[in-house]
């Protein structure tokens, strides 16, 4: 895909994400906008059809749904039902009924183990399949993540890539304030995995490191991101929960459209 084409697609996806959340009066925009660049890069520029993806940070379901929409796997009518009655697109994704989704996620700390199971299966089956899992940074306060990491290292799951959206904010404070862990890199590195870090809002940088895999170890890509990137509450706690007001919605849409015309 040409770079300009991808960038335009990324802009339209962000607009669709905003519209979808605004129509449903749904929050969690901060975490969606900190990972949407990586999600789009992964799905459009890196993953092959047989590869697997798990959204461990299920509260970014909206970003995944619009990414699937951009791939033609969901349509506008589907997205219009997001987080409403009788939808198959709830606020945290369900593992049945959504193309490409394998598990129901939302409770944090499940994805790395599920991904390890998929990776172990792929190695046993010699399928050549790559497994990707997107986590939040606060999620690594769940002990199960570290269980999965140790398991993956022991079994040399080099077909596994865990991407961590390190935006530094969690539900009720910053990761530094809550648990004295602003940067996960040293802790995760100590487990013996292949760790890389990159700015999380630059597609070419993300793509380059996603393709630079270890041949022996599980891969961890830590994204330095900004929660609510590009929105009025960028980098603020409010971006974790609050939906957009009418005024905020129209302001941000106008800003994005102005930027596109420049």
């Amino acid at each position: 895909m040409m770079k300009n084409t991808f960038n335009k697609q990324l802009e339209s996806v962000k607009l669709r994400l905003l519209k979808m959340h605004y129509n449903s009066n749904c929050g969690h925009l901060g975490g969606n906008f900190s990972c949407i660049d990586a999600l789009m890069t992964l799905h459009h520029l890196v993953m092959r059809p047989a590869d697997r993806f798990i959204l461990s940070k299920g509260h970014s379901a909206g970003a995944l749904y619009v990414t699937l929409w951009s791939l033609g796997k969901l349509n506008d009518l589907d997205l219009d039902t997001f987080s409403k009655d009788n939808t198959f697109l709830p606020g945290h994704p369900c593992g049945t009924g959504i193309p490409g989704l394998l598990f129901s996620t939302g409770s944090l700390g499940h994805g790395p183990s599920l991904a390890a199971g998929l990776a172990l299966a792929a190695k046993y089956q010699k399928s050549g399949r790559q497994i990707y899992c997107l986590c939040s940074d606060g999620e690594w306060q769940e002990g199960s993540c570290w269980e999965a990491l140790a398991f993956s290292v022991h079994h040399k799951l080099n077909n596994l890539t865990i991407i961590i959206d390190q935006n530094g904010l969690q539900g009720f404070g910053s990761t530094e304030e809550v648990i004295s862990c602003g940067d996960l890199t040293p802790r995760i590195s100590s487990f013996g995995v292949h760790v890389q870090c990159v700015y999380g809002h630059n597609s070419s940088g993300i793509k380059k490191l996603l393709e630079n895999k270890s041949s022996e170890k599980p891969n961890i890509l830590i994204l330095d991101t900004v929660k609510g990137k590009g929105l009025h509450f960028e980098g603020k706690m409010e971006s974790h929960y609050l939906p957009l007001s009418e005024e905020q919605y129209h302001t941000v849409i106008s800003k994005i459209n102005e930027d596109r015309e420049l």
Partner: protein
Amino acid sequence: MRNAFATTVVSQCNKDDYFFLTGDLGFMALEEIEVAFGDRFVNAGVAEQNMIGVAAGLAREGFTVFAYSIAPFCYARPFEQIRNDICLGELSVCLVGNGGGYAYGHMGPTHHALEDCAVMNALGVRVLVPAFDEDIPAMLGDLTSPTYLRLGYDERPKNTEMPEYASWRQVLSGELGALVALGPLAGVAWQALMNVPVCERPSVWAVTEFYGNEIPEEFWAQVEGKKLFVIEEHVASGGLGMHVALAMAGLGIHLSNFSHHHALGYPTGRFGSQAFHRAQCGLDVDGIIAMILGNNK
């Protein structure tokens, strides 16, 4: 029962589409599975949440997966992984909990499994409680949905003939209504009542699966207007007794008496062997006989 289980897994399930995970347990029991399964046998370490998540991942790719541990570490510690990762996806994972009820006796209350059947049934997991070693081959024949296998000890009296496997089956005849026992307690009840005259004892039924399957007509015919005794090494809430009572109410069955002996937790605050705890709950031979005689008065 562990050895019968291991032998059955090797003879029936040693196929390319089966994996066996253990949470670092099974010393002197699972070695034959480890040898037979090779790369498909994985010691996932002391990390049960991860073990269940890995099991779900493997099952999602088409494998049938055993996940083995001491019972409470298997169903209680990774409860949310069972609920979200296995049950919501209806995946073919068989949780194997060794030591149902008070079976780990002296090891203390952290190692006992007294509410496991209720908890797993509530999630829609198929719960299997083998009464005898011979039940296991039939149980492992269909593992296409989330399953919990509660292993204990085969306590059948020596030199007795085993009826053909069914989830509800009579193992001893009697004329004083019926006694229903969950899993291995059927062997204990069999032992307790086999020398009591037929006219003074209830029939003994071994139940190995009590939720989602039909209770046979023959059983209801035996208890209508008569006495029903239920014994289970499990708390009353969500257990076999409650299930039978609900089914009975739905069918309008009338009894002359209903007695229920079940796990009581730790009523004296003291701990001991499985036999010690069973005796406290009236689940040993003496308690069962007293239960029957008490209702004869």
